[in-house]
């Protein structure tokens, strides 16, 4: 090994704490890049493979009842590659050992062949015997959540027919990667299951012999779905078609897609920030090293080392830091990606997970890290190369301070000399002070932009469960019933309050802008399920017109007072032009609300209900569930408490993990920035500070200059950090908003306080480590050392 390389390694060893502080920031960037790209690739590749292998359909449609003869016509639609018709239906399930009602979605399984589309992936057992009326396959998560084994049975209420069903197999399906039951906000695998039943048995149960009520279509490659959807809607219209839709509106895929997009966004936004910070840190440290090694550089030149060799020597030092950062980042990133993959595997129901972070991601992250550190070091290295040897070996000229109005102001304020030294040094190197402050501001922003989600979710939960959906439970009916059913519901055990609600699938149009949403209608004065205006006050849906959620109104570009066309997909499939009367705040889904009487008047029918919201005497909950299981018209019961608990649990787990990661990241950035800045301060000012000690300043007074300057920079960074954090939070809320949900921007003072506490604490700890060096300063030798 050449002597200059030995010098390189020894320099690195001497600087190892500073190098590690930088390397860890770099490692964060590399790890987050690996994790987000790895997870993004894993999810999207798994999805693609799964959809392809199990023939996930492109277009979906439901209808009330269409004759099987229509199948041939659908198949003739231009662009259709394959069609599958099914019978689907709802079932309330009475599971042994479970007092609460569960809800099942029944899907028919073809008699003589495998399904052409949406092929279930058999996990255990076998598919049901085509002529059996009992045998079923259930989705694997439902079986696991309820502890089912093959051969277990439970009782089901299928449109008023009670049947005992026996599980002969468990399966997963590309249709149900993310499964949410009717009326629920989050997956609850214990309360909602998918049931594959032989076609013949399903037809008998739902009175669908010779008919179907569900169509899936795969379009030929290269074809767009829109014309096929139009043609299919035309064919299904006479048979009560509820409007065909493509994958973007298919619930499971929409959720999966939203997640994949988030990961992609994360991969694009976060790593560059870390790379930038580490580039800046490298540049800061390298500039100082080169300042300190001026005479060594001069010597190397004097004995014949070329500019290129010297430049490379310092670039290699930066590269070594990058190598450590990349190494740590690769290990941490691989582990983090695996952990996240495991979390996703819990969250999404895939039969397999294609997890491989391809080599190019490793290579790209390594290259990016190497490039940013080299770029950070380039300026300093070039400066080293450009130093004229004769000048390099002389001590540098003292930094030039000039009097300015600020000095006059300082004099006016009668500040102590130590404070003046601090302020003057900040002003003497404004760019450095600014960049150090910016680095710390980014650390603050990292905490703000991740922890605000806590408050946002608290707000979502408060709004969804305490302000708008205040009912204890929702009773779902298989078909709309006359409003008189409300009286029957009030007589069910434990029911204290009952209010009606009606849902109609509809397409809202304003010019070329359309959105498919359920229109919800209710009676004025309803207290359990409410909507809120912009100020958070409950709003009674006016007697006429429609109330829209803000996001829906924005999508359709309508304002209150303007009209929107509502094409109802149910009943007579009529279209009405209705005035938008008000806008409401809503975080889940896109809502449209009408007065129950007004809606039924439009339909020219007596008021009907689709669901009844109830409050419960919890002591009688078991009796209610027992009654529900035996009531033919009830398709299911959704308990809001369960819903809320499942929502909170899922979110909490993810939030704790994410917050921990981002707080660690903020601490690493803070240490990286503060420790390095303080070490540089110390090395630049060692003589100055030692002189003060010799003049009689105490340790505390001298360290005040060092600690004071760093902490002042850290304090100045706080408001900028809050602002940047709020900006990133704002970006995140708009990036994460989809038709499925919206994250409100809720910024509580506690979020800012936590961020500042974390960053100021870490900054103080880092600078105190450097302070210990100051305490150990050997006064005599410092004064003797030639700069």
């Amino acid at each position, binding site marked *: 090994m050449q*002597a200059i390389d030995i010098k390189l390694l020894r320099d690195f060893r*001497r600087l190892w704490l500073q190098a590690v502080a930088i390397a860890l920031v770099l490692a964060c960037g590399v790890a987050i890049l690996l994790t987000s790209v790895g997870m993004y690739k894993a999810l999207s590749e798994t999805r693609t493979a799964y959809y392809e292998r199990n023939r996930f359909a492109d277009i979906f449609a439901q209808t009330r009842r269409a004759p099987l003869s229509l199948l041939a016509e659908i198949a003739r639609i231009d662009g259709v590659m394959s069609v599958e018709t099914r019978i689907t239906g709802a079932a309330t399930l009475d599971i042994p050992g479970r007092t609460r009602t569960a809800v099942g979605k029944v899907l028919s399984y073809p008699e003589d062949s495998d399904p052409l589309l949406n092929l279930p992936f058999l996990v255990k057992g076998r598919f049901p015997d085509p002529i059996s009326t009992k045998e079923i396959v259930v989705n694997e998560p439902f079986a696991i959540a309820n502890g089912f084994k093959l051969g277990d049975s439970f009782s089901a209420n299928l449109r008023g027919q009670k049947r005992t069903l026996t599980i002969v197999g468990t399966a997963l399906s590309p249709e149900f990667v993310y499964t949410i039951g009717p009326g629920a906000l989050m997956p609850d695998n214990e309360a909602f299951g998918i049931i594959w039943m032989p076609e013949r048995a399903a037809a008998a149960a739902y009175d669908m012999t010779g008919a179907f009520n569900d169509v899936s279509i795969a379009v030929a490659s290269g074809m767009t779905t829109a014309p096929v959807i139009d043609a299919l809607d035309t064919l299904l219209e006479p048979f009560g078609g509820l409007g065909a839709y493509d994958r973007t509106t298919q619930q499971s895929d929409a959720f999966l897609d939203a997640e994949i997009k988030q990961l992609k966004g994360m991969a694009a936004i976060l790593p560059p920030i870390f790379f930038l910070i580490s580039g800046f840190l490298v540049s800061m440290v390298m500039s100082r090293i080169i300042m300190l090694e001026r005479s060594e550089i001069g010597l190397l030149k004097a004995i014949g080392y070329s500019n290129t060799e010297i430049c490379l020597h310092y670039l290699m030092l930066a590269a070594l830091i990058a190598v450590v950062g990349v190494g740590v980042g690769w290990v941490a990133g691989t582990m983090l990606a695996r952990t996240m993959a495991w979390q996703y595997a819990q969250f999404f129901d895939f039969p397999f997970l294609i997890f491989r972070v391809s080599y190019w991601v490793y290579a790209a992250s390594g290259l990016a890290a190497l490039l940013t550190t080299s770029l950070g070091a380039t300026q300093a290295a070039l400066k080293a190369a450009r130093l004229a040897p004769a000048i390099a*070996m002389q001590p540098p*000229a003292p930094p030039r301070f000039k009097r300015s109005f600020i000095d006059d102001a300082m004099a006016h304020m009668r500040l102590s000399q130590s404070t003046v030294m601090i302020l003057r040094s900040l002003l003497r190197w404004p760019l450095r002070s600014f960049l150090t402050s910016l680095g710390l501001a980014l650390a603050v922003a990292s905490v703000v932009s991740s922890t605000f989600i806590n408050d946002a979710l608290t707000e979502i939960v408060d709004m969804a469960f305490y302000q708008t959906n205040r009912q204890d439970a929702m009773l779902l009916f298989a078909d709309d019933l006359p409003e008189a059913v409300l009286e029957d519901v009030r007589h069910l055990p434990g029911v204290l309050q009952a209010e009606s609600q009606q849902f109609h699938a509809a397409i809202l149009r304003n010019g070329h802008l359309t959105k498919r949403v359920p229109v919800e209608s209710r009676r004025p004065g309803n207290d359990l399920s409410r909507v809120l205006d912009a100020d958070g006050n409950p709003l009674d849906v006016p007697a006429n017109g429609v109330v829209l959620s803000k996001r829906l109104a924005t999508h359709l570009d309508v304002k209150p007072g303007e009209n929107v066309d509502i094409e109802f997909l149910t009943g007579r499939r009529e279209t009405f032009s209705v005035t938008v009367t008000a806008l409401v705040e809503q975080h889940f889904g896109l809502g449209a609300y009408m007065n129950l009487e007004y809606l039924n008047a439009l339909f020219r029918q007596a008021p009907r209900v689709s669901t009844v919201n109830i409050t419960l005497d919890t002591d009688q909950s078991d009796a209610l569930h027992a009654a529900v299981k035996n009531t033919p018209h009830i398709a299911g019961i959704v308990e809001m408490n369960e819903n809320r608990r499942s929502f909170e649990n899922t979110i909490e787990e993810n939030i704790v993990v994410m917050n921990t990661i981002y707080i660690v990241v903020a601490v690493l950035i803070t240490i990286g920035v503060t420790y390095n800045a303080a070490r540089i301060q110390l090395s630049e000012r060692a003589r100055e500070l030692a002189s003060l000690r010799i003049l009689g300043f105490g340790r505390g007074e001298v360290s005040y200059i060092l600690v004071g300057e760093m902490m002042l920079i850290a304090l100045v960074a706080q408001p900028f950090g809050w602002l940047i954090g709020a900006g990133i939070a704002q970006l995140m809320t708009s990036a994460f908003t989809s038709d499925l949900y919206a994250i409100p921007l809720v910024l509580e003072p506690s979020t800012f306080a936590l961020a500042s506490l974390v960053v100021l604490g870490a900054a103080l700890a880092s600078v105190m480590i450097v302070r210990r060096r100051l305490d150990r300063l050997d006064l005599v030798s410092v004064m003797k050392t030639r700069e």
Partner: protein
Amino acid sequence: MAEVVFKTEGVTKVYETGDVKVYALAGVDLELFKGELTVLLGPSGSGKSTLLNILGGLDHATDGRVWFDGTELTDMSDRGLTKYRRDHVGFVFQFYNLVPSLTARENVQLVTDVSPDPMPAEEALTLVGLGNRMDHFPSEMSGGEQQRVAIARAIAKRPQILLCDEPTGALDSSTGVQVLEVLRDINERFGTTTVVITHNAEIQRMAHRVIFFQDGKISETRVNKTRVAPSEIVW
């Protein structure tokens, strides 16, 4: 007549530090001969170090011309000067300028790694009497020892010229004498043209020739008829 190694004509050097202009050299004409040990003597700021830097290819003259062994250095490129230093010049500085993170041996290897025909680092260190201190770091050595490492580093490339800037400036008398002994020994053993800068008038007694500097100019040149051994010098 001995062969001329260095020749300068009207060398001028102006330093601009901030707003201040300093005339370090104001027209120096000089010839240095092969195998000669020359002492440049003068007070601080008289321009000795500046001249040495220009002769050593560390700096360019503002005006005037410089030749080494018939080759003109005046307008040589940076790359050319680097090669010139690497192949021909050995430097010894007042403050040793050792790399603190390298041992004595490794400091010498810095030079032997890049020069075309070096002697082994161990041989160079033995020549300066440090054969038994090769694996010590600079911080573990006395000032005299450090300066001897610097000399070993300078001679390891078998330079044609050895340029020493105040080599005893940071040393006490007895340690300084040891260093001067080494310099004379090298000069005699290898015939290396040696230039020693000093403001210590005593040291002139060991030189073949003494050049006096004053205000950036040569004020006097004197040939020593009798040279004394460094051991006889005291200050």
